[in-house]
């Protein structure tokens, strides 16, 4: 799954397949990170929640 | 409270994130996968120096030349020895699986004395001194009582130094009761004694024949020397030779032959005479041989012409008249025709008339002692020991008749162990006090097992020289552990049809497992313990010395090559070959008794009560002799032969329909001798009315890889002594099969 695994070859199959995989993983990873960061920033701004302290 | 929860949550999340980001889980995952790749409970064979040792494996019928690959001190593989005569580098499956027997858990590793009742399996280990002390006490008792003849021995085969030592021991001791397990070689030997007038071994120059007419011989089912036969068969295929197989069941041989001629079981000899009828009638025989080197032809001709017309023979055998005529003509016109017999693997002896008839076919074609024909070979004569000195007791014993009637009631026979049970039971001519068994496993291989087991119970002392805890060892009073075929020296005289004198040398390949002693050594030690003339008869310090001295100038060559063979051997010319009264080949020896001997032998049992006929069959995938099938062999057995612990018998779908049986049905197989539950396998490759059962299953001894699987056919069949030779002539038995 990584270019350093020995069965990796720089051919079309690997680039398309692994490209698709890493693309999907990136979206998911970045998306969730974005959500967490945004939520954290919103919280810092004092938004949200029913019980403020 | 809220802060606590927040703290708790953050802590939890933080810990989880920290663990995942640390190398720990990844390291553990990796380590676990590596651990799974080398589980401590999965064996990891040790490396070591590779060496190869040539030897001869004594497991199969005639001995395979083997090369044993060793790594360090371990033997890891047995392969065929390149250049070994006959085998030429090939190996049979039994010898190839030999390491499973050698390293197997049922090896006997120290002397064992019976504790419980016979066959119960309760043992106590004893020292060799105690064990030998017990045997000499029993033996000395027989001599003291003046009945040395009450001691007998059964070994596997007649030739070779170990059987010779047993024979010598008994002779010097005073007993004529040296027995071995007879095979088709004995039937052929009887035929050669009667027709050639010589004591000979039969040999077949198969590789040079171009038309082979096999009367039931399982050419590729383990007949003769199996590997040599396979090679000859392949040679015939390459050369375009014709093979016609006469037998009631489509064996592998029949399937690979040019033509399968199904024949009623037991009528193979009649078919041979039917062919002789055509050959004689159409004057297709070899005039030179018949006119100038044979006698009794007229009687033979008259009998065959009168009684074995195609019509009669067709009725007896079930073969079309046209087939009889065409096969006879083809056979007679072939360049090098050869007729062979001995059913299946040739472990059964069969009717003398059948062997005589087939041999007569070869004689008619003048193939005796000719290229591509049947040869008479001298019996192995390399053991030249002086006659053992006999004291009075021994002379007295040796003057007695043998228990099995060989040499007395049946002059041409040498060993008839199937007659032992009756002799013991009836104490006629006398009882048996001590039985020694070495290399043989009569409590598995002899027909009429149920009877035999009972009668052997009457023998006060049975001592088994055994490598493995086989059925006979399990029933013995004392088991003397013998080194395996890879741990000892032994000469192996070829007797299964190789057309040249050949002696193989088995040698120690690996260090001995357990505290074993070579049977030869044990005999020498027993002789010394008994003292007197017995001790004098065994002048050798040990077996290895004995063997070396016996083989004399052959020893060095055998050590180097693994065998000794007389490559220049040629059989005697016709003018020197025959030592009958007439000096000619005898077509009609007295034993034929006006042709009665040529009539097909009826199987045992009442046809009304037992409407079917059971014919045991041999398969190369199951060892059916004294050596049991190791796990690898049983693994190769098809699931239509053995399923779980249940064995299948073959029947024709036509017979099955009549009995209401289907593929896989459980059925009760009953014969006059016994009964067993089996499953049914439908096969178009067996004549209707017959039940085919594989030999070699149904062991009660050995381990769970073998024991309890299937039925021992020898418990269902009985022996019938041939009126002329005394050998067991039975080829089957009447049987019934009913839904179980």
């Amino acid at each position: 799954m990584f270019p350093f695994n020995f069965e990796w070859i720089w051919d079309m199959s690997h680039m398309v397949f692994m490209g698709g995989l890493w693309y999907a993983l990136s979206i998911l990873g970045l998306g969730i990170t974005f959500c967490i960061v945004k939520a954290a920033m919103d919280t810092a701004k004092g938004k949200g929640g029913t019980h403020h302290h | 409270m809220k802060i606590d929860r927040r703290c708790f949550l953050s802590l939890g999340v933080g810990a989880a994130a920290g663990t995942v980001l640390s190398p720990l889980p990844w390291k553990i995952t990796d380590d676990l996968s590596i651990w799974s790749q080398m589980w401590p409970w999965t064996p990891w064979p040790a490396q070591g120096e590779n060496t190869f040792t040539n030897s001869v494996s004594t497991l199969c019928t005639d001995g395979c030349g083997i090369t044993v690959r060793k790594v360090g001190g371990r033997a890891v593989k047995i392969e065929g020895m390149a250049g070994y005569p006959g085998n030429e580098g090939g190996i049979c499956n039994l010898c190839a699986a030999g390491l499973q027997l050698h390293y197997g858990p049922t090896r006997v590793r120290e002397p064992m004395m019976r504790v419980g009742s016979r066959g119960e399996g309760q043992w106590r280990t004893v020292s060799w001194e105690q064990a030998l002390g017990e045997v000499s006490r029993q033996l000395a008792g027989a001599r003291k009582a003046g009945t040395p003849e009450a001691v007998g021995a059964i070994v596997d085969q007649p030739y070779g130094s170990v059987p010779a030592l047993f024979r010598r021991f008994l002779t010097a001791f005073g007993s004529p009761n040296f027995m071995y397990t007879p095979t088709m070689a004995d039937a052929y030997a009887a035929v050669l004694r009667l027709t050639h007038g010589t004591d000979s071994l039969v040999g077949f120059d198969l590789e040079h024949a171009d038309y082979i007419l096999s009367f039931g011989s399982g050419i590729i089912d383990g007949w003769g020397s199996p590997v040599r036969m396979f090679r000859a068969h392949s040679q015939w295929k390459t050369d375009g030779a014709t093979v016609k197989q006469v037998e009631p069941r489509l064996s592998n041989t029949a399937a690979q032959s040019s033509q399968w001629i199904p024949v009623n079981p037991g009528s193979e000899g009649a078919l041979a005479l039917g062919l002789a009828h055509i050959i004689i009638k159409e004057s297709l025989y070899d005039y030179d041989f018949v006119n100038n080197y044979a006698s009794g032809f007229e009687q033979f001709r008259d009998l065959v012409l009168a009684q074995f017309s195609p019509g009669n023979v067709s009725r007896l055998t079930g073969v079309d008249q046209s087939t009889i005529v065409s096969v006879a003509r083809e056979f007679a016109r072939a360049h090098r025709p050869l007729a062979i017999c001995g059913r299946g693997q040739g472990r059964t002896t069969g009717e003398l008339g059948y062997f005589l008839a087939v041999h007569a076919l070869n004689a008619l074609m003048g193939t005796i002692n000719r290229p591509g024909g049947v040869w008479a070979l001298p019996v192995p004569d390399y053991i030249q020991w002086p006659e053992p000195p006999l004291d009075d007791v021994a002379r007295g014993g040796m003057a007695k008749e043998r228990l099995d009637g060989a040499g007395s009631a049946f002059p041409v026979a040498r060993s008839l162990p199937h007659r032992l049970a009756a002799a013991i039971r009836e104490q006629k001519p006398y009882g048996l006090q001590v039985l020694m068994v070495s290399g043989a496993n009569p409590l598995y291989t002899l027909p009429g097992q149920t009877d035999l087991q009972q009668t052997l119970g009457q023998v006060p002392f049975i001592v088994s020289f055994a490598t493995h805890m086989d059925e006979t060892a399990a029933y013995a009073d004392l088991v003397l552990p013998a080194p395996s075929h890879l741990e000892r020296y032994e000469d192996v005289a070829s007797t299964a049809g190789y057309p040249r004198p050949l002696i193989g040398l088995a040698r120690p390949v690996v260090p001995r497992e357990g505290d074993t002693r070579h049977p030869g050594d044990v005999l020498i030690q027993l002789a010394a313990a008994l003292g007197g003339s017995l001790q004098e008869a065994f002048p050798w310090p040990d077996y290895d010395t004995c063997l070396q001295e016996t083989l004399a100038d052959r020893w060095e060559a055998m050590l180097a090559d693994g065998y000794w063979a007389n490559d220049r051997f040629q059989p005697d010319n016709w003018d020197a070959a025959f030592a009958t009264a007439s000096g000619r080949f005898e077509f009609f020896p007295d034993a034929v008794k006006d042709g009665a001997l040529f009539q097909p032998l009826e199987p045992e049992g009442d046809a009304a009560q037992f409407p079917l006929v059971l014919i045991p069959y041999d398969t190369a995938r199951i060892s059916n002799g004294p050596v049991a099938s190791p796990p690898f062999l049983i693994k190769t057995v098809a699931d239509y032969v053995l399923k779980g612990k249940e064995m299948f018998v073959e029947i024709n779908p036509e017979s099955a329909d009549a009995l209401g049986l289907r593929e896989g049905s459980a059925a009760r197989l009953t014969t006059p001798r016994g009964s067993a539950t089996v499953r049914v396998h439908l096969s178009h490759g067996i004549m209707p009315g017959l039940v085919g059962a594989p030999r070699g299953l149904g062991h009660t001894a050995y381990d769970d890889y073998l024991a309890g699987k299937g039925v021992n056919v020898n418990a269902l069949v009985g022996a019938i002594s041939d009126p002329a030779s005394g050998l067991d002539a039975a080829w089957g038995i009447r049987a019934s099969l009913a839904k179980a």
Partner: protein
Amino acid sequence: MKIEGEQGKSKKYGMVIDLDKCTGCGACMVACMAENNVPFKQDESDKRLSITWMRVYQLTNGKAFPDADICYLPRPCQHCEGMHEGHSPCVSVCPATATDYDAQTGIVSQIYTRCFGCRYCMAACPYHARHFNWWDPVWPEGMEKYLNPDVSVRMRGIVEKCGFCFSRYQKAMEKAHYEGRRELEELEYQTACTQACPAGAIVFGDLNNPQHRVHQLAQPDPRRRGRPGNPKAFRLLEELQTYPKVYYLSSREWVHKAGHKAELIKEAGAHH
């Protein structure tokens, strides 16, 4: 599935099995088990649970007595080349590259420490040449002494199969390299079953090498994906375009019919 190596130097190891000579004795199976540390259980009569890299099938012609006929067909791994080289039924589906097509030798390998036991390859193989280790291999006490150190013992939970005795190839190559050779003689590398077959029915060698007996017997046509030129020869299920490297010889028409459907075999190169 790396396809590389200098053209012309690559081997295509294959087998020719003469079914007219095969006696069905089972020596090849035994030799294979002994060479390759194949385990065994107390009951091996359920053939679907019995690890037999080499299995000898019994074929029947389906005719009634007395026209019945049988033939034995030894079945090692067929080392399929597939529609294009390396696209064997099993190699193409293994998710973890645990079975591989070696372009240098044409041998389909099985990497035991890589296989995680998904059994997809077994589903893919029409020859049932692949076997799963349902149990831990256990040898009766003492018998583990005969295990061959050149072949690793397989652990439970993985798939194994015939590899044309690849360890023998490696040993032969090592020896050749040591002696400064790059090529093997025909007889330097032979599988255990070939060596053991008492009937000489199995012949093994390089199908690309006209000097080798396998080539002479099968007469494979490289332009037609190795179609045998010898009319006596056929490949099992060749119509599936597996392109096996095991050829069978038989003079019996019904055996040919049982082994393949000649009329359906597609011409070469159609599938690229």
